[in-house]
């Protein structure tokens, strides 16, 4: 081969076209779309918050009521996500590994928290778990109060987070090669060793993703929680509700301050989970 065609190409005024045309248009659209929907509103939130000034911000966020609400929202969401991580894994495992009558019905039921309007879920949960409800009454006799307190909030958060864990885990468990378990067995590993050393590490990335999604959903949840929460300031008042209350008091800067705090904390936690994932991936998982 001579170098002639290469020289000709270099001299030609037009660059050779990419095999994937339309980059400029697609990128432009993506950026404008993301800006309009995500970046500009969020930036607006911070600008509005900045109106408070540093002292004002500290004053708003440092108030016991705001701190309690943030603690409740994030603490409750973490507990709910952790509960879902354990029991959602069990549910996903059961769906993938066993056949039983009514399996499809149960699988559809897992999706209900996705599809149900949150207010409907909230009313249903409240009706069942309130002290005179079907499950609330027996629980009350045992001394457990399952509604109108943080327990009720965690309950609602668990309810809406469940499908995230189950649905992210199912395909991964399905894909997890049965041969890995067989290989472990031929090497002498007991069932317990196989589960803890082989299966769990294999599905851990998916579990973390499901956990992050369930957590994010629980932090942002509003509709299904406020019915069962009781909404007592400092005790069972979640941060999104507090934002709502501040808005109704025309305290826009106070509302955006709480919102910004939620945004920053959520972002930080999700970033942490993603970094953990990336770290695991670098290790070849």
């Amino acid at each position, binding site marked *: 081969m001579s170098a002639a065609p290469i020289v000709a190409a270099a001299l030609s005024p037009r660059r050779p076209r990419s095999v994937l045309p339309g980059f400029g248009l697609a990128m432009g659209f993506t950026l404008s779309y993301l800006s309009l929907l995500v970046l500009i509103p969020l930036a607006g939130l911070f600008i509005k918050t900045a109106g408070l000034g540093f002292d004002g911000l500290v004053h708003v966020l440092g108030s016991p009521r705001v701190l309690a609400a943030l603690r409740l929202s994030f603490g409750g969401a973490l507990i709910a996500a952790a509960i879902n991580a354990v029991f959602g894994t069990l549910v996903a495992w059961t769906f993938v590994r066993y056949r039983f009558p009514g399996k499809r019905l149960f699988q559809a039921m897992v999706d209900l928290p996705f599809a149900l309007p949150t207010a409907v879920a909230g009313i249903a949960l409240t009706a069942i778990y309130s002290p005179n409800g079907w499950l609330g009454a027996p629980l009350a006799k045992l001394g457990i109060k399952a509604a109108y307190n943080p327990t009720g909030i965690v309950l609602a958060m668990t309810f809406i987070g469940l499908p995230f864990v189950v649905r992210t885990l199912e395909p991964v468990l399905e894909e997890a*090669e049965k*041969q*890995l378990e*067989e*290989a*472990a*067995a*031929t*090497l*002498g*590993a*007991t069932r317990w*060793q196989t589960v803890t*050393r*082989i299966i769990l*590490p*294999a599905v851990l990335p998916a579990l973390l993703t499901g956990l992050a999604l369930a957590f994010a959903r629980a932090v942002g949840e509003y509709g299904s929680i406020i019915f069962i929460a009781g909404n007592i300031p400092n005790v069972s008042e979640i941060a999104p509700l507090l934002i709502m209350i501040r808005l109704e008091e025309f305290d826009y800067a106070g509302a955006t301050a709480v919102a910004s705090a939620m945004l920053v904390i959520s972002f930080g936690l999700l970033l942490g989970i993603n970094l953990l994932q990336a770290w*695991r991936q670098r*290790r*070849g*998982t």
Partner: protein
Amino acid sequence: MNINIRGISKRFGDFTALHGLDLDVASGELLALLGPSGSGKTTLLRAIAGLEPIDGGRILFGDTDATRLSVQERRVGFVFQHYALFKHMTVLDNVTFGLRMRPRAQRPRSAEIKRRGLKLLDLVQLGGLEGRYPTQLSGGQRQRVALARALAIEPRVLLLDEPFGALDAKVRKDLRRWLRQLHRDTGYTTIFVTHDQEEALELADRIVVMNRGRIEQIGSTDQVYDSPSTPFVFDFLGSPNVLPGEVRADGIYLLGATAPIEAPNGFQPGPVDVYARAADFRVVGEDAAAIEGQVVETQRTGVLVRLTVKLAANQQVVEIEIPHPDPEMKVWLPGDPIRLRPAHFSLYRDRPPQPANITEDRSADYAAPGSRVRGQ
């Protein structure tokens, strides 16, 4: 360790995967289970490992009845086609997994475990890669890690399920030679499954040819290749030309020939199928026992030339391979008349019709008298 299999059977619903097989594997032997997919070879291998529960029969490891032992207790080294390496562990952790999972009382100390793991990695020529993760290795390297992992538990028997099936041709060839060497060095009783006849012939001491859940033939590589006991075995170890022939009082005639190619050999008079491989044909001059035809196509394949010949007697098309150039320096061209006779062939009668339903059991029909005949 000797492995003795007595009448094991396995059904999957309506499908019978194993029809009461008997098989004896000598200690230190390298045995191939060869057959098409669905022949039961992998099921048999998995049954020996205990990965597939069997419906009947017994499996003996030496004097131990392994039938009742769990997978963990059987201590078999199993290598899977797709490696089944633990992706979240380093190569060394993979190899030492079996040792690390032992109950505390039987577990060597961790320094000893590491030493043994590194030694095995040297054995499979992966020294220095112990810190890598499986995704950072090539296919051939992964399969060697899998092998080292299986060897680490000092298995009673090494079982390999299509070990080279997922690798490309070049790597496969290298690994075959290397596995043969490793077997010679370590002496583990080894059984491997393959559908590749070339692989079985090149690697194994003995070959078990399987078809539809039964064993068609067990023998050394020479035996199964030179004296296939059934048309199936002949067919599976290299595509044959099947010529119509006839057994008469004075010998075996090919269709259209006026002299016998072979003296009578116990076959009852009547039609017979003559199986001959492409390379078994010789080009002859005047020969009353030969068959006549016309060259239709020629194709050079390295040192051989492949001729497609249409037979004059029944318009059948046969493929033959002859050395190139042929001894008389003749260059064959389409249209040339040619006379052929098979130098080696096998005779079978009652060739079974190809069954339409795979679950239907027709393999009993193959039990036809077969004999390998060597011509002059």
